[in-house]
C-alpha cells in the first residue's frame, strides 16, 4: 500500500510539476516498477482516497516527495531519453559525477587511500641484509651514522632493525647496488647477502605485532620450561636488548645428586675412584640407549622446592664461592655456576621461557617466597605485591585506605568506580568533597569484626569474620569450619551472607543419610566432587570420602516404629563410650545407630555417631525438652509401657523383636509401622485428604480415604504422619499437638492408639 501511495504521489507530482513532458512519458519511469495495472482506469475513484490520504499524510508525502524527487532525478538521467544518450562521453561524465566519491561509502574511501599508499613499483624497495647476530641495532645505527656523515653519497632511504628478527636488517633503497655500496666497509653487515623483499611482503615487515608487555622489575612471572616449569618467580632485572631477564626462584636442587655430580666431574676424584675400581655414574642421565637403538630421554626427577642452605651445601663438600655480581654489586654464593642469595636462586633466562601476563602468585607461593626461614615477613614485600596486583574489585561503599602518596593512610569510602580512577569520600572532618585516586594506590580496609566473603582466589566462596588485619592480609575465621584462613584483602568483600558451603551435589544433600557400598553414613560435608561421610560405626568415628557414584542410594527418612525410644530432634546425652558426656540433638537414626549433632563438637561438622544404647534422652524435642529435663535411661523403660506403645494394628511380633534397651530398632521395615495409621496426604492428586493406611509396599502406600469410599495408592513421600508418632511436628499448625500444654489430655485424637500414648515424648523412653 505504501508503495502504491508513493507511486501515486509520484504520479501526482508528475502532474504537478511537469505535466506536459511526463504525461506522455510516464512509461520510462515505470520500467522497474510494475504499475501497468494501476494505470488502468478508475483513477477518478481512487483520487478521492488519494486526496484524503494525502490530507493525512501530508508531511510524509512531502518527504516522500523529496525522496522521490531525488530518486527521480537519479533515475531520470540514468535512463536518459533517447535524445540525450547521443553523447556517450557525457554519459560517462554524468555517471562519474554521480557515482564518484561523494556517493560511495566512506569506509571504502579510507581503504582506497590505504591501498594507494601501498608500495608500488615506483617506490623504493626493501632489501633484507644479513648482519652479525645480536648486532642488528648496531648495524642500523652505523648505517645511519654513515649516511649522516656522507650525505647524499649514501643512497639508501632508511634502515630497519627489528627486535624479534635476529641476524637481519632491512634497508630501503632503489637499487641493490646502493645497498651494497652503503654496507661496504661496515664490519657488522655482510653486504654479500642482499635479498629483495617482494612488494607484497613489504608491509608485513613492519606490521608484525610484538608482545607489548613490558616485564618490569619485581613483577611476578612463571617459568615455562625446564625444571622450574610452572614455578613462580620474581623479576630482578630486565635486559630488553638481549631479551633476557634475571629472576629469583626457590631452588629445586637435590644437594646429594649435585654433590655426586660435582664429584664425578672433578677429574682427580674420578681418577681416584676408578683407580679403586669404582665406576661412578652420574645420577642425572639424560638419555639412555635402548637395545633397539632408539634414544629416549629419561624423565628427570624434579626435586622439591627448598631454599638453599649454604651450610648444608658446604657439608656435602660442594664448593661454594662467594662472588660479586658486577652489575648490582651484590654478593652471591656461587655453587656449580648457579647464583644464590638468601636461599634463593637467581637465574638469567630468556624472555621466551617465562610467562608474565596475569600471573598471580597464590598465597602459599607468596608465603614461600617471603618466608624461606620461618617467621620472617618482609613488609616491603607486601608493597611489591601491591604493585603487581592486577585484580582489584572495588565496589561502591567499600571502605578503603590509601597506601601510597601524600594521602597515605587516609581512610575513606568509595563513592564511584571508574576504570582506573576511584572517587572516595574521605573520613575526615571538614572534607566533604570526593577525591579521585588511582585504583593502584588503594587498598581495601577491613576492621576486625567485619563479616566478609571471599570472592576470588583459592578460597573463593568462603565467608567468615575478620579477626586480624596484617597489611594486605586478613585473617578470617570461617563460618563453617571455624578455622582461620589468610586471604588478601583484595579478594574479599564485605557481606552479611553466611554460606553453608556447597550443600548439594547430585541427588544428595548435606545431612542426608545414605547407603554406601559398605555400610551407611551421614553426609557431613559436600565438596566439589565428593562427599565426606561419617560412617555409621558407633563409637569409632570413621570418615570416608566417597564419590557421587559410590553412594548407592539415600536412605529415606522413614517413620520408624511406634516404639521409638529416641526420635529425631531429641536431645540426648551420651553416657557410655568415648564421647561420654557429650550432648546434642539427634539428627538421623538408622539401624540402632544415632547421629547426634553437637555444636560443641568440632570434628566432623559436629556429628557424633553412637549406638542408641549408650545414650539417654534428655527431655523431648527442643520445644519442651528443656523444661522437663527428666532423663530416663532407656533401660528403665518399664515393660508395661512398652506393651502399650504398640503399633496399632501392627502384628505383635514386631514388637517382640524390639530391643528392650535400644533406642532404635528401626529402619529397614519402617514402612510397616504405617499400617493402620491415620495420615494426611500432603501432595499429589489427593492432597489434604485424610485417610487410614491399609498397606505399604516399598514406596507405595495404600490409603483408605476418609471422605470417599475409596482406597487409593499414593507414594510414601506424599503423606505424612498425622499422628506424630516418631516426631512431634510442632510446626504444622493443624496438628493440635503443637499447642499442647505439658499435660496432654488423653482425648481420642488418635482413635487407634491407647490412651497412654504420649506424643509429647514424655514417656517415650
Amino acid at each position, binding site marked *: 500500500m505504501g508503495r502504491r501511495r508513493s507511486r501515486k504521489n509520484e504520479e501526482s507530482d508528475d502532474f504537478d510539476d511537469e505535466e506536459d513532458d511526463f504525461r506522455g512519458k510516464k512509461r520510462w519511469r515505470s520500467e522497474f516498477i510494475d504499475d501497468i495495472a494501476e494505470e488502468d482506469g478508475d483513477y477518478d475513484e481512487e483520487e478521492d482516497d488519494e486526496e484524503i490520504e494525502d490530507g493525512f499524510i501530508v508531511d510524509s508525502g512531502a518527504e516522500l516527495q523529496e525522496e522521490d524527487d531525488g530518486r527521480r532525478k537519479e533515475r531520470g538521467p540514468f535512463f536518459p531519453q533517447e535524445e540525450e544518450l547521443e553523447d556517450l562521453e557525457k554519459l560517462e561524465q554524468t555517471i562519474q559525477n554521480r557515482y564518484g566519491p561523494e556517493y560511495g561509502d566512506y569506509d571504502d574511501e579510507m581503504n582506497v587511500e590505504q591501498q594507494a599508499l601501498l608500495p608500488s613499483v615506483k617506490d623504493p624497495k626493501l632489501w633484507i641484509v644479513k648482519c652479525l647476530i645480536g648486532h642488528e641495532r648496531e648495524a642500523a645505527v652505523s648505517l645511519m651514522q654513515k649516511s649522516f656523515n656522507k650525505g647524499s653519497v649514501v643512497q639508501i632511504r632508511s634502515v630497519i632493525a627489528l627486535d624479534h628478527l635476529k641476524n637481519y636488517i632491512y634497508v630501503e633503497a632503489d637499487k641493490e647496488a646502493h645497498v651494497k655500496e652503503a654496507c661496504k666497509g661496515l664490519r657488522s653487515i655482510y653486504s654479500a647477502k642482499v635479498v629483495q623483499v617482494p612488494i607484497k611482503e613489504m608491509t608485513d615487515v613492519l606490521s608484525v605485532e610484538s608482545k607489548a608487555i613490558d616485564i618490569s622489575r619485581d613483577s611476578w612471572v612463571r617459568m615455562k620450561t625446564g625444571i622450574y616449569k610452572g614455578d613462580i618467580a620474581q623479576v630482578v632485572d630486565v635486559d630488553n636488548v638481549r631479551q633476557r631477564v634475571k629472576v629469583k626462584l626457590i631452588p629445586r636442587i637435590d644437594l646429594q645428586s649435585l654433590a655426586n655430580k660435582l664429584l664425578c666431574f672433578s677429574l682427580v676424584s674420578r681418577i681416584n675412584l676408578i683407580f679403586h675400581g669404582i665406576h661412578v655414574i652420574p645420577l642425572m642421565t639424560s638419555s639412555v640407549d635402548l637395545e633397539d637403538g632408539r634414544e629416549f630421554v629419561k624423565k628427570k626427577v624434579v626435586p622439591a622446592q627448598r631454599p638453599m642452605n649454604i651450610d648444608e651445601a658446604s657439608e656435602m663438600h660442594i664448593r661454594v664461592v662467594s662472588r660479586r655480581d658486577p652489575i648490582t654489586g651484590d654478593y652471591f654464593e656461587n655453587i656449580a655456576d648457579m647464583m644464590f642469595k638468601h636461599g634463593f636462586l637467581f637465574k638469567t633466562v630468556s624472555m621466551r621461557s617465562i610467562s608474565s601476563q596475569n600471573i598471580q602468585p597464590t598465597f602459599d607461593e607468596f608465603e614461600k617466597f617471603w618466608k624461606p626461614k620461618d617467621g620472617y615477613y618482609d613488609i616491603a614485600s607486601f608493597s611489591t605485591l601491591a604493585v603487581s596486583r592486577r585484580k582489584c574489585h572495588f565496589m561502591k561503599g567499600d571502605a578503603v585506605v590509601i597506601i601510597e602518596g601524600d594521602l597515605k593512610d587516609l581512610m575513606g569510602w568509595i563513592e564511584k568506580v571508574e576504570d582506573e580512577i576511584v572517587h572516595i569520600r574521605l573520613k575526615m572532618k571538614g572534607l566533604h568533597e570526593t577525591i579521585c585516586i588511582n585504583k593502584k594506590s588503594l587498598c581495601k580496609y577491613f576492621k576486625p569484626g567485619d563479616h566478609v566473603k571471599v570472592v576470588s582466589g583459592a578460597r573463593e566462596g568462603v565467608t567468615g569474620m575478620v*579477626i586480624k588485619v596484617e597489611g594486605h592480609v586478613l585473617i578470617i575465621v570461617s*563460618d563453617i569450619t571455624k*578455622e582461620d584462613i589468610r586471604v588478601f584483602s583484595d579478594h574479599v568483600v564485605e557481606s552479611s551472607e*553466611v554460606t553453608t558451603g556447597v550443600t548439594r551435589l547430585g541427588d544428595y544433600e548435606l545431612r542426608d543419610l545414605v547407603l554406601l557400598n559398605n555400610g551407611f553414613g551421614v553426609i557431613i560435608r559436600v565438596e566439589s566432587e565428593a562427599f565426606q561421610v561419617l560412617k555409621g560405626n558407633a563409637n569409632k568415628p570413621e570418615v570416608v570420602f566417597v564419590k557421587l557414584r559410590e553412594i548407592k542410594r539415600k536412605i529415606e527418612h522413614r517413620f520408624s516404629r511406634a516404639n521409638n525410644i529416641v526420635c529425631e530432634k531429641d536431645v540426648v546425652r551420651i553416657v557410655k563410650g568415648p564421647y561420654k558426656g557429650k550432648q546434642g540433638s539427634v539428627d538421623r537414626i538408622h539401624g540402632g545407630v544415632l547421629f547426634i549433632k553437637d555444636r560443641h563438637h*568440632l570434628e566432623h561438622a559436629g556429628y557424633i555417631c553412637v549406638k542408641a544404647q549408650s545414650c539417654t534422652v534428655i527431655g523431648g524435642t527442643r520445644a519442651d525438652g528443656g523444661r522437663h529435663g527428666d532423663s530416663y535411661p532407656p533401660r528403665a523403660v518399664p515393660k508395661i509401657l512398652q506393651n502399650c506403645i504398640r503399633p496399632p494394628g501392627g502384628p505383635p511380633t514386631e514388637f517382640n523383636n524390639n530391643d528392650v534397651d535400644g533406642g532404635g530398632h528401626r529402619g529397614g521395615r519402617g514402612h510397616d509401622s504405617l499400617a493402620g495409621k491415620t495420615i494426611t496426604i500432603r501432595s499429589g492428586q489427593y492432597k489434604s485428604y485424610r485417610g487410614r493406611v491399609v498397606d505399604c509396599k516399598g514406596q507405595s502406600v495404600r490409603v483408605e480415604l476418609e471422605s470417599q469410599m475409596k482406597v487409593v495408592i499414593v507414594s510414601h513421600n506424599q503423606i505424612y504422619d498425622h499422628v506424630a508418632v516418631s516426631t512431634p511436628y510442632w510446626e504444622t499448625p*493443624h496438628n493440635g499437638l*503443637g*499447642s499442647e*500444654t*505439658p499435660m496432654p489430655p488423653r482425648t481420642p485424637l488418635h482413635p487407634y492408639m491407647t490412651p497412654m500414648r504420649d506424643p509429647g515424648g514424655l514417656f517415650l523412653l
Partner: protein
Amino acid sequence: MFFHIVLERNMQLHPRHFGPNLREKLVAKLMKDVEGTCSGRHGFVVAITGVDSIGKGLIRDGTGLDHVPHQKYQCVVFRPFKGEILEAVVTMVNKMGFFAEAGQVQIFVSNHLIPDDMEFQSGDIPNYTTSDGSVKIQKESEVRLKIIGTRVDATEIFCIGTIKDDFLGVINDPGAAA
C-alpha cells in the same frame, strides 16, 4: 547485654484448651514457645516477666484454632554487641582457639586474638598457658573477653571475641583454685 523489652507475638491455641483457664494456658504456651529462642534482632529471650495484653482471639475458619493476634509481653532478652565486654565460661579448647559460652551465646576466641605469650598445649586437658605457667585457660575457666564481631544465624548468634586487650583474660581458674 540484657534488655527488658516488650515484644509481640501472634499465637494460636487449640480449642481443647478453651475453658476457664484459657488465659493461663495461653500464657503457658507463650512461655513455652518463646523462652529460650533467639531472634536476630532482639537476641535471646531469657525469660518472660509478664504479659501485657492479649488481643481478641478469633476462630480461624477451617482449622478451628483460635488465633490470638497480638500478645504483648515483657521479657528479658540478651543480645551481644560488638565491642561489649563479657564474662564467659570456657567450654572447649583446641589449637585454633577456644570456645566460651556466656549464657546461650557462644563466643569463639581465635588463637590470633590470644596474647602471644600464651601457647596451646594439647594433652589430656588442652589448655592455653603462659610460658611461666602462671595463667592458664582451660575448660571451665572463666574469662573476660571482648566481642569484636557478631554474626546472626537463623536462630543463633555467634560471636568472635578477643582477650588480647587490657584487663581481659582469665578471671578465675578452676585448675588453680583446686
